[in-house]
């Protein structure tokens, strides 16, 4: 263990600054390193051969990927027949592009115009996705937060709201796709509805639980100061749970993104999902990876911004 700093293995002990940044970078660099190993070290995996010269094997084309087994059998066959053997080099399957290919794709995806003039650019697709998420999440917050706070404050509301919500949250949101299209048409409305359905029921339950965690002593103190009813909600319960509520919303926003992909397949395929399926169809897996990475980056950056904003908004909560 002397190789690594001792503090790494003390339970719940704070890390020194250098270790902290080192580990944060490693957290991203390690997966990238493994990906690079698999991509650039042929001995590791590379189950395919990319043909550079088809030789006398007529059915092999330059640039084609064939299984190693088939390739070597062909080479042996051609050699034994005295003909020109095909040539090629080890390669990974098309669905695992190398890091540099994805990096290039990440750049070119934004600079390449769409194949057809009526198709959206990548950034337009992304913007559309973000709009769908924003609307779905907005409606979920508008309905879910008030209901959750009521359920968390009053036992009566909890008993009225929570049992049905518990039931409904097990119904998979995508199952409502066809219904949503029938009711709301084929454009954005059913997609927003799927994100709403996928998020709102979890939101009610999580907000209710968060509200219940507010110290009852604070509520009692307020009661003895003459504060009750709507005034209690407004002056004590809502401000008291706000920082935790904010954190819940950050987590739930992540959930909304997971429903996005399903939602965008409903009706007319659109947004980033349309881009991904389209690129997968052309076997441009570097573009597929690029698009998936972009979603991850957007999610992470949004969350970091929200976390930073949260510390600004609730300075009194920093001590916790």
């Amino acid at each position: 263990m002397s190789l690594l700093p001792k503090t790494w293995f003390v339970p719940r002990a704070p890390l020194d600054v250098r270790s902290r940044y080192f580990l944060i970078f490693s957290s991203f660099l390690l997966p990238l390193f493994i990906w690079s190993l698999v991509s650039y070290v042929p001995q590791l995996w590379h189950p395919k051969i990319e043909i550079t010269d088809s030789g006398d094997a007529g059915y092999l084309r330059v640039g084609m990927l064939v299984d190693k087994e088939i390739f070597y059998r062909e080479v042996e066959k051609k050699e034994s027949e005295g003909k020109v053997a095909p040539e090629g080099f080890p390669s990974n399957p098309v669905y695992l592009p190398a890091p540099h290919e994805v990096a290039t794709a990440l750049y070119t995806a934004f600079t390449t115009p769409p194949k057809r003039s009526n198709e959206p650019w990548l950034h337009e697709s992304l913007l559309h996705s973000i709009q769908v998420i924003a609307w779905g999440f907005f409606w979920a917050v508008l309905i879910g937060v008030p209901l959750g706070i009521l359920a968390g404050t009053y036992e009566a509301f909890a008993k009225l709201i929570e049992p049905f919500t518990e039931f409904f949250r097990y119904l998979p949101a995508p199952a409502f796709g066809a219904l949503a299209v029938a009711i709301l048409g084929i454009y954005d409305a059913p997609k927003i509805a799927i994100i709403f359905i996928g998020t709102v029921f979890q939101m009610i339950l999580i907000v209710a639980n968060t509200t219940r965690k507010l110290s009852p002593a604070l509520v009692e103190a307020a009661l003895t100061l003459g504060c009750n009813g709507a005034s209690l909600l407004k002056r004590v319960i809502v401000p008291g749970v706000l920082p935790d509520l904010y954190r819940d919303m950050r987590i739930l926003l992540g959930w909304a993104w997971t429903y996005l992909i399903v939602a965008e397949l409903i009706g007319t395929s659109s947004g980033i999902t349309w881009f991904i399926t389209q690129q997968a169809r052309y076997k441009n897996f570097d573009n597929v990876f690029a698009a998936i990475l972009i979603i991850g980056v957007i999610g992470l950056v949004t969350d970091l911004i929200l976390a930073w904003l949260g510390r600004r908004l609730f300075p009194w909560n920093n001590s916790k």
Partner: protein
Amino acid sequence: MNHNEHNPNRHPLADLYTPEITARFERIRNRPVAIEVNQLRKTFYHKKQENLVLGGIDFNAHQREFMCVVGPSGCGKSTLARTIAGLETHDSGDMIVAGSHVSGPGPDRGMVFQKYTLFPWMSVKKNVMFGLVQSGQDKADAERDALQWIDLVGLSKYAESYPHQLSGGMQQRVAIARALAAQPKVLLMDEPFSALDPQNRAKMQQYLLEIWQNIDITILFITHDLDEAVYLSDRVLVLDAHPGRVREILEVPLPRPRPIELMLSDEFQATKRYLESLVHPPITHLDVEEKLSMVQMVPVDSEVPNIF
């Protein structure tokens, strides 16, 4: 209380009642009643088991009196304060505070809790303003009043601080200011200093007495610390446990004002010993369940074979 020398049931502390002290209690008895509790009963239900916590409590507290409530654990002293505050329901009996029957919490009965209950999202000033704003006072007035109360508890420097920036003792001082700012008739205090270290606690007790002397407030103070009870109280309400009943209401035979040195006096110690005998009956033998089944576990050849 009977102070007759020839009565065999003469109170053990009878000798301590000087004429001045007796006269003071006479004056207190003639004041209007601030808290009247009649036959108060309260049962808790837990897993279909009934537990009678308060088995018919009767007592009065007079205006501007300082009354402590002591008793063995489980005697329902906290429950009593919470019931008077309106935070707990009761089965039967009634409570009259400053002329009106208690039904639910209200600003006429302020409360200070054992836990720190300042609103963490509000500055000290906003916390103290809370009750004032609630009663409809306009912002500027409330702010002026709040600052006066904060000054009274000696925390003017911290008016704009958040609770988490204050020590435990300071937080409780703000909690007292917040409760008093709402102008309650009585102040219920549920072991408010029990989380503080002894030094801070002694300081808080003196602060509290000083505040109490200078404003029109009746205090019902729950504690398990008998020193605290004797030092603070005019009268001590001693409760029995299972169910909680009034054992005795003791008039503390100590003059006022009470300097801190008074705690070392014979009168103080005698009063405390007497309370001790009421609250914790002498232990003759440990219950079988309470006895630890210990055997000598130190090797005989140990370097330190025993602790003596």
